[in-house]
């Protein structure tokens, strides 16, 4: 989950009111934000991917102002003024990155460094989250006063040169793609021969989406008005992203927004609010409370949503930026946040169901108790085992059910448990013998389908242990289930020659038993004889 750091001093400034740190932190958790760490000056919080507007501190303060009733501040739905600014989109970008949206945020005041920093952090989170690592959409912020409209969004050849953000000399597109880290990271998103480019009417390069902006139009603490452009391969994601930026800038600062016509078309209708109807009964049924329409409206307001009652129903106005609200249930959560979870009393369900343990669990519990009665200690190992333990030290063949993408390249799914138990013995050589261990666990194999089976495996490490010791354990353990085994001589890489047998039940092969070979014991650095067996419980007990 994405993380953001909130500086307490700056939060006071954004809120426009002194609020105690403890009150602020409590309010953050009441909004559903997780506190990761906290010190004197700041708090680090995790925000959920469904609320990308919390990616900047001023996005969070917008909601906090409503939640804490700061000067009765309501969340406002933004207004976009008409204008004659234009960007023309060339058909040449169709196959590369076809969509472009832009908006101008005008102000008479300059933007401060901290706000720029927050804007850039949020931009990165939006790129990675909604933008799917810039593939679906990417954002550019530019100093409006340095740009000569109309702009053109077109493609250029790789020899095209401009000074990219953070550099002092001109780079060709080819050099940006080959030499700069952003170029190497995101270069695969743009076509090979031509690159998408936003260029102003004087021929000055504004942006090379989705890779890098030009140095010339960078926003600094001298910037007053900002051009925000979003280029995308998915138009809905582009609208989502832009609506969030507009909404939080609009509610946090004194920006006035101006439409930019794309190919002569005013697209601002795409950022209109929508209405959703909510029924009081629906809310009360879900939350198990009994609150009035007015209480629901007040709660929604605290969550930053405007609503009103009409014909006994509640009509909620949802800004374009709250696309996470898909269904009425999402509004119920907003009511809950505004109402306060702490105001809900816990209550056990009224229904009377009778609880029951699963039959398989009953069998596994029974065999576990029997093994303990025989003096064996239960161990638990993971199904994901180190390749070295599962195959190399035991000289077994590889499991044919492979993991396609394990982060830990050494992981394999175990097809039997004995290697894990030998590994346990090898980690316990300093402890007193005899060591008697068992495990009940799932193993995996692939045939026509994936075969999962639950096995019982056990080992006995002691100076006097041998085949017969373990055969006694095996036959005794299953006698209570009226299961009787025969053993049939076999050879196997884990066991000594002449000391290994298949376990047969009703002429079906259900497991293996034997004395672990000297070779395998050496591989595990175990210096005492070990015998063991493994038997498949699936199909045998249940």
């Amino acid at each position: 989950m994405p993380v953001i750091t909130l500086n307490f001093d700056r939060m006071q400034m954004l809120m426009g009111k002194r609020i105690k740190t403890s009150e602020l932190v409590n309010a953050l958790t009441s909004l559903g934000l997780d506190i990761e760490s906290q010190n004197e000056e700041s708090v680090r919080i995790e925000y959920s991917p469904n609320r990308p507007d919390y990616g900047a501190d001023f996005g969070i303060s917008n909601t906090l102002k409503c939640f804490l009733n700061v000067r009765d501040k309501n969340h406002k739905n933004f207004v976009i003024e008409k204008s004659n600014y234009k960007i023309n989109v060339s058909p040449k970008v169709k196959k590369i990155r076809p969509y472009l949206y832009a908006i101008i945020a005008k102000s008479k005041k300059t933007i401060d460094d901290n706000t720029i920093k927050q804007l850039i952090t949020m931009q990165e989170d939006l790129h990675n989250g909604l933008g799917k690592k810039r593939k679906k959409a990417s954002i550019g912020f530019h100093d409006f006063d340095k740009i000569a409209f109309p702009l053109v969004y077109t493609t250029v050849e790789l020899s095209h040169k401009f000074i990219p953000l953070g550099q002092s000399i001109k780079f060709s597109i080819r050099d940006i793609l080959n030499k700069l880290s952003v170029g190497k990271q995101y270069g695969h998103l743009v076509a090979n021969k031509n690159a998408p480019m936003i260029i102003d009417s004087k021929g000055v390069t504004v942006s090379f989406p989705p890779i890098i902006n030009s140095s010339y139009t960078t926003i600094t603490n001298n910037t007053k008005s900002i051009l925000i452009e979003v280029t995308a391969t998915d138009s809905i994601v582009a609208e989502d992203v832009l609506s969030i930026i507009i909404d939080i800038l609009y509610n946090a600062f004194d920006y006035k927004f101006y439409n930019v016509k794309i190919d002569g078309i005013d697209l601002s209708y795409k950022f209109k609010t929508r209405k959703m109807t909510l029924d009081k009964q629906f809310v009360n049924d879900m939350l198990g409370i009994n609150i009035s329409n007015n209480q629901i409206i007040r709660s929604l307001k605290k969550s930053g949503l405007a609503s009103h009652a009409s014909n006994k129903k509640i009509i909620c106005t949802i800004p374009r930026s709250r696309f996470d609200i898909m269904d009425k249930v999402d509004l119920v959560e907003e009511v809950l946040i505004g109402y306060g979870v702490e105001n809900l009393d816990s209550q056990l369900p009224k229904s009377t169901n009778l609880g029951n343990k699963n039959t398989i669990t009953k069998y596994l519990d029974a065999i576990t108790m029997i093994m303990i009665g025989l003096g064996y200690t239960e161990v638990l190992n993971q199904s994901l085992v180190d390749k070295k333990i599962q195959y190399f030290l035991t000289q077994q063949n590889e499991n044919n059910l492979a993991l396609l993408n394990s982060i830990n390249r050494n992981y394999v799914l175990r097809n039997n448990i004995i290697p894990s138990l030998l590994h346990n013995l090898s980690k316990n050589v300093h402890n007193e013998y005899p060591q008697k261990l068992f495990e009940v666990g799932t193993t995996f194999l692939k045939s026509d389908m994936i075969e999962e089976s639950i096995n019982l495996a056990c080992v006995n490490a002691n100076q006097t242990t041998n085949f017969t010791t373990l055969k006694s354990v095996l036959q005794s353990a299953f006698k209570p289930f009226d299961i009787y085994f025969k053993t049939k001589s076999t050879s196997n890489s884990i066991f000594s020659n002449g000391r290994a047998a298949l376990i047969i039940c009703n002429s079906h092969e259900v497991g293996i038993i034997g004395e672990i070979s000297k070779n395998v014991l050496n591989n595990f650095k175990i210096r005492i004889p070990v015998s063991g067996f493994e038997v498949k419980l699936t199909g045998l007990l249940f």
Partner: protein
Amino acid sequence: MKSLILHPIEKQIIKALKMTVPSKFSVLLQKTTLTEDQLRRGIEWLRLKKLIDVIDQKEVLVSLDSNALRSYNENMPERKIIKLVNKRDYTLQELQQILKYDFNAAISKAKKNNWIDIISTKKNVIVRIGKTKPPNTTAEEKLISDIAYAKIPENAIIDTKSLESLKKRSGFIKSHIIKSKLILLNKRINFDNTNNENTHDRPIDVESDAPLLHIAHVHPLKETINEVRDILISFGFSEIVGNLTQPSFWNFDALFTPQNHPAREMQDTFYLDYVLKNDVATPQQIKNVSYIHNKKWHYKWQLSEAKKMILRTHTTCTTIKYISSNLPKDAKIFSLGRVFRNEKSNYKHLSEFQQIEGLIVGADVNLRNLMGIQKEFCKRIGLNKIKFWPTFFPYTEPSLQTMVYNKRTNNWMELFGMGIIRPEVTKPLGVKNKILAFGGGIERIAMLKYNIEDVREFYINDLNLLRNFKCQL
């Protein structure tokens, strides 16, 4: 004196010591059936009990050095000269040439015993037989042949005079110092009854500690799993079990997780080298799930993606499948077992861990019921300080998390997540009533219970810990 309770090892050692006191370690090793290690341990036990004394002993062994060995194989230098001059007189120069490096020793020893005379003439110096007749074997010669190639304790040699004189000759006697332990019974203790087989009719030390045994036991994490299961059953929940390998459909698609969701991407989920061949769900279920994804997430849902097999990332795939095939009007079910996340394991998180997850189905169930179950559950596992925070989960709305106060670390930690399952999940599966869901990791509960800070410890299976578990009620 208290009577003695002895270990079989100790009994054997005392029995052997009674026959030969004092004994060396090597002797006891022969006289008992014990291994070196057992004998060493037994001696140490007896010594601590003050039943035996162990004395450090220094022993000197002597053996013949190179010159003495030559004398043993040939003759002593003085014997060589006698054999020569018995035949005729020799000049000094002649003898020097014949005897070489034995010359000086031969002349001085033979002269001292008056076995030879040395006469100076005008021309040269002549050696001839002396007044005393040499014995056939001298005491020194006897000692040399007694020692021969052996190492003999110095104190076993009776002829100390000859030994001392041989020691004075260079290259004749080598001394070896050997340190050893001498083990002897404590004389103040009566060992008569230690041999008695009928010890049961004699008083014993009933107050001393007896040796401890190792207890075979369920794994501590399994204890917690069993406890959690028992609590849920006592709340009226029934257990559902399911496979650890699951098609993506039931793990993700049925739970309204879009196919391009980050959690489904390769880095968070273990994908298996297998695509389901059978039907993943009923045609109606597939149609409904496909419809809701296309409509609400704005993309083209793919059946092939839903058939990819994975290691389950939660147990909800099992419970939701049960609900959708049985469609109960009201039910309480739970599932617990292993779930997988394709992340590197560290002290806080494992790539494979145990999860408990439960569903409550009913027409009039609500969020407060989830809080009620949580509160009661936490009370049963001994956590009384809890609170609820809103949070986000992809398939529940509203969603809460149970925060519990951790006394040790002095902060709030998340224990369970919960919420009401979204209509985008229930409607396509044909479920009319509400479904409440909750779930959490079991290791986290066990860590609080056993005061363990590194979650990986549960899977190390150190016998030192497993054998010394503490009963937790």
